[in-house]
């Protein structure tokens, strides 16, 4: 990212200080509200049950690299066992 410069290139809006802070606070309240409502995601018809399954399985769904996902190592072990790749190792 050759064009990335230190943070803050984005200029703040030309509104008054009060309005800018008010917008920030409203946005944070929105985040708080979203967090507060998050447990209700499981009540959504259709996907609610699937969300419950994933929550209970404790999978790191948002993890973006394989070594952040504990289940991956379980999967690797399973594949090695089934394909006879782990015997004999030495």
């Amino acid at each position, binding site marked *: *990212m*050759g*064009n*990335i*410069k*230190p*943070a*803050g*290139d*984005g*200029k*703040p*809006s030309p509104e008054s*200080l009060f309005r*800018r*802070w008010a*917008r*920030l606070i409203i946005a*944070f309240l929105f*985040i708080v509200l979203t*967090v507060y409502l*998050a*447990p209700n*995601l*499981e009540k959504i018809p259709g*996907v609610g049950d*699937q*969300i*419950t*399954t*994933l*929550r209970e*399985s404790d*999978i*790191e*769904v*948002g*993890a*973006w*690299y*394989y*070594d*952040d*996902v504990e*289940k*991956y190592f*379980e*999967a*690797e072990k*399973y*594949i*090695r*066992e*089934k*394909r006879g790749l*782990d*015997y*004999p*190792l*030495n």
Partner: protein
Amino acid sequence: MAENPQPDKVFKETRVSMVSQMGKTEDWWAIWLAGLFFVAVTASCFIWKPPVEELPQYRAIMNQEMEEAGFRTIAYTEAESKINSIRARNHGFTKVMRNITERPKKWTTNPIQAFYMSEEDAAAKRAAAAGRLETAEEKLKQARTRAEQAENAARTAQFQDQQLNQEARAAIAEWRSVKSGHSKAKSAANAKAYNLIPSLFVLGIVMAIFFAIGGKFIGFNLKEYFIGFPVIYLLTIISYMLGNQANFKAIGISYVLFAIFIGLLIANTTGVSKSIKTAGQTEFFIKTGLVLLGARILFGQIALIGIPGLFVTWFVTPVVLITTFWFGQKVIKMPSKELNIVVSSDMCVSGVSAAIASASASGAKKEELTLAIGMSMIFVAIMIFVLPTIANITGMHPVWAGAWLGGTVDNTGSVVAAGELIGYEAMVVAATIKMIQNIMIGVIAFGVAAYWCLKVEPEKACKPGETPMKLSVGGAFFEIWYRFPKFILGFIGASIIFSIMQAGISPDWGHAMVEEGILSLANRYRGWFFGLAFVSIGLSISYQELKEPLRGGKPLILYVFGQSFNLVLTLFVAWLMFMVIFKDITEQLMLGA
């Protein structure tokens, strides 16, 4: 009045000597810092070494049991558990370095639990899990007795009776499965009180000093940097905390999205101070994190699922990547090649990790990376529910479905989640295919960097309308070397060194010292470095800049085209490989399922 630029001044490049670059640029300092990290962690793992000398004796037991019985006996399983428990990360200073990197924990309704749990709450948790543990212990005892009886019967027949062998194999498999359930129950029943505040405080100081070392040479204003860093770090902690809310976590809304979003909010409302601008060193954090990530690209793992796995990943992925990039350039005429390659690799390689690597390799803008990550996360949240539903309704074979998910859903965590919604075998295959695809990002980053410095950058450096100079082989090599993003050398170097180290003395040693030692720590620190980077990205973008690449909806068209092509091609190739040509591998994977 706008002046006409003087062509010879505008397009002339000032070349900086390599020695100067090595001491003053982020690319090189990312390598030096990651190198320093690896040296320190490796030294710690060797000084406070786990009992690796015991590994051969456990492995000998396993080999002897396998030789004798032809299947995994009780003694084999116990020796295997001993091997798995030997981990460098649990010893001495390595343990201390790892413990301070603890991220905010998962919570449901009370965010304080992300950081703190009192002794009373822990006791309540233990009490709640005590009943489950008791049941699990009883089950384990019974399963163990059945396994012992079956194995003894088979052993008495010197493992010559196939019927008894089969019974023993089944009883031991059941015991192993119950054992795993027991471990989970035990861990819940051993809930301990925690307070992450002190360790987070120490980690903040460690990371601030770590990056300041490079910053001093690169030319940071260190006073401003040390004032601004705590703010960036605090926002990173908040992002992790939000991303660990149980339901957000379940649908894949991770800290990445929160970090960028919070940064964006602040930058576009109150604005950010000079000190925060100085501390938000996006590129430096990302490049250092990427070099640490390189160590996890272990080439020994690519053959795990055989030729069909390689074909689904290393054939389909480049085909989709090149086709999507071509479509972006020639058909919809994307305004930015960098945005095109970042969206294309994010979509068809491995999501966020590939987006970061190709953005860094091509010199993409921060808003282009943000856009690619944002689109990918939205599509992923849909795909983890839609694809398993299609697979379940149509009754796809689990191995075929797993390979399809692994090759198409963007991030590993989401792939595993989608696989889990189909079944265990699908999850296992999906995770493995995605891991092989993850390993590809080293090659992709190298390819993108080489293409950009040989083809794209020289075009930019020419006068308008002029054809870039035709390069000789030697000239091309020099050109690539000069323009190449050097941190990628660190990224690839780390991959080579740790691939060799992992396979080095023995796979068991590699597991105990490299995977469960050095790489385990690299993973933790890398996560924090990327967290700092994502917050810094958000803090440096204005809404206007973000709207610009979205104009005309071209990135969206590109993503939808590429992903549709990917879905169809992967579906076909996975079917051809796992259901037609290499059916034996599919049968192997389903054995006993």
